[in-house]
């Protein structure tokens, strides 16, 4: 096996571990023939936990849902037809958003086609409904029924109409019948979860690699803020602020990412050349990064961004999936290929498994560590750009404590803090588990103090579960 050399250092064959044919062997080498499905299958426990959580929150958020749009409009028109004779005057009430426009249009069309009179179609706020009712009274016209969707039916204005508008007499409000479905399983919500975790999951790719090498990177949270501040500052100062072009913004964002990559590289240099523990180096860089972010921004948020800046964080260019989620999935795929099929991946595992052995077998340890920390910095920078895009502004207080959530995602995903083992897709599952728990607790109305306790226990539980699973696995391996 030829080792593509990443540094000029030749394999120190004479003292290294060599197998029978004189080839260097790598400790804890990846099992061959890995593919996505096998990998997911080996993460079966975590996937199962994720599904279990999903099922639990689906059950907990089982709630009445309101039909929307055209279907709801037709349904409400048919309800009116059942209880009111032809020629009745109907007021259609809806909010001024596109979904409600479809509702109002469909209700109006269906009612008219069936011989009902439309008093007025309200598309707006409760105050518009009040004005419409007043106009009907002023014009000495009656209103027999109000066709509302579930949102407008809840307007306080439509309660006790008899006392508020005695001139109208007894007006009934008809709204579509509800059906049941878990809030958790709504498409919008599932996309929310993916979008909410995208930043943490992207950074967790770099963190997984760092942790597999036996290190840690505490600076990623601060680098989110730094990159967000640098990118937005470049856009306001150099790319024309609100008039910035997509091309200009891309370069500004790359600037932010490059800055973080440079800080990551610097951490790597400190760790490799001076053998300072990664914990200390990245702790220092966490302060440096945060301080720089505050310095550059002077403590203020930078918000003179063009509307198009939100494309990355909130836009949907592909099948309604947020771009940040697409980016996350693509990065995971690339990282998976790197970690399982490329020599860099094998080196990363080797360095974490046994650094000395790896060095002796010719793994360019220094280069591997430099690459990994630079990558971690760059991905944190990318996370910062995505955050800035989601919030359409940059601020030095972004990303506080995120390093802990990122590490939690990696650990819940089954990567050992001792280094040498872990899986990229495990981290994605770990991130999704954390996002699902947070989202589920928000949807079920668990208050925030309790949320923290639960999240802490979940992280502990996941590691415990992993430990127990591993013990069993190791025993099994020994027998084999």
């Amino acid at each position, binding site marked *: 096996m030829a080792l593509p050399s990443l540094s000029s250092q030749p394999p120190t064959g004479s003292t290294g571990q060599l197998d029978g044919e004189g080839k260097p062997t790598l400790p804890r080498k990846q099992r061959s023939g890995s593919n996505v499905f096998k990998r997911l299958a080996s993460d079966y426990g975590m996937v199962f936990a994720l599904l279990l959580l999903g099922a639990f929150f689906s059950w907990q958020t089982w709630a009445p849902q309101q039909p929307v749009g055209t279907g709801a409009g037709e349904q409400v028109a048919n309800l009116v037809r059942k209880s009111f004779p032809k020629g009745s005057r109907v007021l259609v009430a809806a909010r001024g958003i596109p979904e409600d426009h479809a509702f109002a249009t469909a209700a109006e069309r269906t009612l008219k086609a069936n011989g009902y009179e439309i008093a007025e179609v309200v598309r707006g706020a409760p105050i518009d409904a009040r004005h419409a009712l007043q106009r009907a009274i002023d014009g000495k016209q009656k209103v027999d029924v109000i066709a509302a969707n579930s949102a407008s039916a809840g307007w306080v204005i439509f309660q006790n109409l008899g006392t508020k508008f005695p001139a109208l007499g007894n007006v009934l409000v008809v709204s579509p019948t509800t059906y049941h479905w878990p809030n958790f399983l709504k498409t919008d919500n599932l996309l929310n979860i993916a979008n*909410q975790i995208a930043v943490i999951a992207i950074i967790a790719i770099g963190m997984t690699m760092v942790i597999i090498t036996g290190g840690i990177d505490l600076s990623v949270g601060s680098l989110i803020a730094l990159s967000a501040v640098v990118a937005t500052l470049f856009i306001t100062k150099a790319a024309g602020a609100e008039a910035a072009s997509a091309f200009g913004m891309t370069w500004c964002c790359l600037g932010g990412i490059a800055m973080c990559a440079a800080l990551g590289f610097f951490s790597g240099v400190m760790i490799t050349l001076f053998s300072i523990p990664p914990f200390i180096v990245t702790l220092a860089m966490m302060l440096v990064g945060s301080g720089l972010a505050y310095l550059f921004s002077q403590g203020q948020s930078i918000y003179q961004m063009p509307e198009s800046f939100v494309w990355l964080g909130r836009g949907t260019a592909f099948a309604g999936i947020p771009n940040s989620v697409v980016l996350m999935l693509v990065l995971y795929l690339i990282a998976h290929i790197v970690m399982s099929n490329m020599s860099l991946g094998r080196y990363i595992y080797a360095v974490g498994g046994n650094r000395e052995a790896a060095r002796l077998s010719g793994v360019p340890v220094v280069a591997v560590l430099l690459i990994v920390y630079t990558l971690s910095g760059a991905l944190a920078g990318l996370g910062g750009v995505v955050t800035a895009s989601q*919030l359409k502004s940059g601020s030095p207080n972004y990303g506080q404590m995120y390093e802990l959530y990122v590490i939690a995602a990696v650990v819940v995903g089954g990567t050992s803090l001792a280094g040498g083992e872990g899986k990229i897709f495990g981290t994605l599952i770990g991130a999704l588990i954390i996002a699902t728990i947070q989202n589920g607790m928000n949807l079920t109305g668990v208050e925030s103090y309790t949320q923290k306790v639960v999240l802490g226990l979940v992280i502990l539980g996941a590691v415990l579960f992993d430990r127990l699973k591993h013990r069993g696995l190791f025993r099994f391996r020994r027998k084999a």
Partner: protein
Amino acid sequence: MNNPFFKEIADNIEMAAKAHNYSVIATSADFDVAKQQNQIKDFIVKKVSAIVLCPADSKAIGPAIREANAAGIPVFTADIASLDPQAKVVAHVATNNLEGGRMAADAMVEALGGKGNVAILDHPEVESVLLRTKGFEERLAELNKKPGNDVKVVAKLAGGGDKAKSFKVMQDIIQSHPDLNGVFAINDPSALGARAALENAGKAAQVKIIGFDGQPEGKKAIKDGKIYADPIQFPDKIGSKVVELIFQYLDGNEVAKQTLIQTALYRQADGAKDASLK
């Protein structure tokens, strides 16, 4: 909700809404806008009738509010306003911080008998605090025009709005201004941090403190004579006012864009009468 002020707003919203048979989901963003944005997205999925926000960042919260706008959910802000011109907020309810700052200046001149050197423990990152110090400085300038009055601001430093940082900053201020007579701290935690530093330096009797807020701990300190006075805020009124406005809105009435709740000066005599401190 780490700050009891926000907790009281939320509790009063909950109480007032219950009277209308509405239920309230209260979440805390812990001053993290990204987290707050996610919480708003979760509210949108749940199709709530209205959202009340204390923005974690006046500018960065804009996109989240616009998302609620697009979902047809009315948004109200309490205490902290949104400064995004494109985000539609139905109404904003807050303390009249400018007037509160002016009251603080009145109390300061009263405490010092019209003469002395004062320091301001600032927290300029927050819009409402900027108004407090502005009101304080404006009113002080007015009062100084009266013959015999001469209260000078000799230092204005950021205390971070928290006890620990204000403690350190106050220690430094005493070093550079040993002749200090008064401190205006922009909230109770800063005032209490300053008090600790003054006690440490044996200057507690020499330097009078004016705080802001009227949190239970602050009120207790006023009662014990450790803080001279606070312009106090009424988070309970903010909470119940927001709910009142929500129902006015849903009932199809015009709603005032901004409602300011007045502060009131709270001195030691008020503390002695205060039943909540017994």
